[in-house]
């Protein structure tokens, strides 16, 4: 299987979808500069640089989506989404409902997040849960190059506004991407490793930490199941509950703050739907209620690491 970085996988998905559908266009701060091969193939009308103005970029996308185009916008870093909150949440997320179904908003918003660049909290903030909590929006956060491509293609074809979070630390890590038309349906978790003793649920780069922890747990005689959510909304609660019915133990892992994070929703769903199967309390591993630091050791310590996941799983099994 060929390997691509997620950056290249995103580029491939964009190019394929722009070829597939002439209404797809992409714009944002520096998009035409960074992805000049798209400008070469599709022309400057469909690949546009924009002013540094996230509000109008997102609003323009919503207005265009409602009237016949399928925009993909690049808002760079997740904290910058704050400038686009009204357009994403109040317009793209709500105007379908408010209008009684008169409009749809087929649009994708790209935003990078997570530690890895060392530039601090105004570039690094895992705020994906905000959007999970906003009606009308879908939220994705892939962990593998193949899913970056397959999920982005699905997101572009979806008739709803999709937030597509790009874990910065993964962006240039090559991974396998199936050849040909590769589509990954939204809302389906991926069981990356089967296990019987404990379920590790994660998304984004901490999926890889979970896989590494699962390998170590196997050495310690513990069979861990690893689930990559990929899609935070729709959330594949059924896959998680089914796994916990089997293992009886759950560790949820993400870089985002624990407080009211996606892990809290997962823990609640498992408590509601699989309480009788639980043989130990649920553990949530996540970042603290603090902005992310620029300093490398502090930045890295924000996300749960392999030893922490290993220790958490071990504690549940003993």
């Amino acid at each position, binding site marked *: 299987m060929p390997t691509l970085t997620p950056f290249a996988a995103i580029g491939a998905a964009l190019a394929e979808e722009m070829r597939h559908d002439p*209404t797809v*266009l992409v714009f944002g701060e520096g998009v035409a500069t960074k992805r000049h091969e798209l400008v070469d193939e599709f022309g400057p*009308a469909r690949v*546009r640089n*924009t*002013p540094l*103005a996230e*509000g*109008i970029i*997102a*609003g*323009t*996308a*919503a*207005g*265009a*989506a*409602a*009237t*016949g*185009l399928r*925009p993909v916008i690049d808002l760079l870093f997740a904290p910058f989404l704050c400038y686009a909150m*009204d*357009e994403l949440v*109040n*317009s793209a997320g709500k*105007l*379908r*409902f*408010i*209008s*009684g*179904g*008169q*409009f*749809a*908003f*087929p649009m994708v918003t790209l935003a990078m997040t997570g530690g890895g660049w060392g530039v601090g909290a105004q570039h690094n903030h895992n705020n994906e849960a905000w959007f999970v909590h906003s*009606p*009308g929006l*879908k939220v994705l956060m892939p962990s593998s190059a193949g899913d970056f491509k397959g999920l982005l293609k699905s997101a572009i074809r979806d*008739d*709803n506004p999709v937030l597509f979070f790009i874990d910065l630390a993964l962006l240039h890590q090559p991974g396998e991407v199936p050849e040909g038309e590769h589509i990954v349906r939204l809302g389906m978790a991926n069981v990356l490793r089967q296990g019987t003793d404990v379920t590790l649920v994660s998304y984004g780069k901490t999926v890889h930490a979970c896989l590494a922890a699962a390998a170590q747990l196997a050495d310690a005689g513990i069979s861990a199941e690893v689930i990559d959510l990929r899609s935070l909304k729709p959330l594949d609660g059924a896959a998680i509950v089914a796994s916990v019915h089997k293992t009886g133990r759950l560790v949820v892992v993400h870089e985002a703050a624990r407080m009211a994070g996606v892990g809290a929703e997962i823990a609640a769903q498992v408590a509601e739907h699989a309480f009788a199967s639980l043989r130990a309390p649920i553990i949530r591993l996540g970042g603290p209620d603090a902005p992310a630091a620029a300093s490398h050791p502090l930045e890295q310590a924000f996300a749960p690491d392999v030893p922490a996941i290993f220790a958490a799983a071990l504690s549940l099994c003993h």
Partner: protein
Amino acid sequence: MNSESQAIDEIALLEQMLLVRAYEEAIVAGSVAGKIPGSCTSVGQEAAGVGVVSALHGDDLILTNHRSAAHLLARGADPGRLLAEVMGRATGYCKGKSGSLHISVRELGVMLTSTIVGGELSLVTGVALSQKMLGRTGIVTCFFGDGAACEGIFHESLNLASVWELPILYVCENNQWQAFVHRRETMKTEHVADWAAPYGIDHATVDGNDVLAVRNAALEAAEQVRRSGRPFLLESWTYRSRGHFEPDDQAYVDPTEHAAWLARDPIALSRQRLIDSGRLPREEAVALERRVRECIAAALAFAEASPLPAPGEMTTDVYA
């Protein structure tokens, strides 16, 4: 335009303004009686809305906001379905999910109405981009208030529309008030139109209480947008005669200012002009007013008799 067609036009415009006024008065009376939720009325701004909409083509699109009755009714919206929407009925244009504040009527080209101050300004660029990229001929009109012009998104919208050459007719209804704050407290300039030129956008300010002046200015502005494919900003200088949101005792309004504007009521001005020039016999004016009242009475009866939404509607139309 010859004087004959102008005469016919102004009577039609007067009828539309009367319809808007009667519609708003029905809502006010209903809200006093506790039967209809309060709303942001367009009383005093009828000429500003009706005049612009009368200048648009059938395939032009409109974005508006919470103070939209004149835009919707002038575009041909059914007052019964509008009142049903305001009253939260299933027969409303948005199935009762909007209420008065963000009524869209896609079949009439009234798109993406938003009550977030400045929301329409953030969306209009995308709607105009679709028109341009998909080769559609209609231009896009965006109604907003002077308060919205103080939002950052106004400036982002004008800048992008100018840089990307988008066919947008921006129409600011400068009604002097931004909820409970006078525009004098929030802007160093009298005119929102002054803010267009730095973005490379042509602009004009018109007496927003003279429906013919508004119509003529809008015809010219729309023609320029059609011809150039570029944005234009038209400011209607007008007044919010009633409060921000019903009920509102307007205790904070300077009575001298209020009285001066009431003396220039757009409906009274147009009616008097038509009568004085002999184009509208007084009895015909009275008949016109009666017709409009009957129309609104029938609309109200329709809305009141309409069913409420089924409980299941709470979670439909969320995802496509």
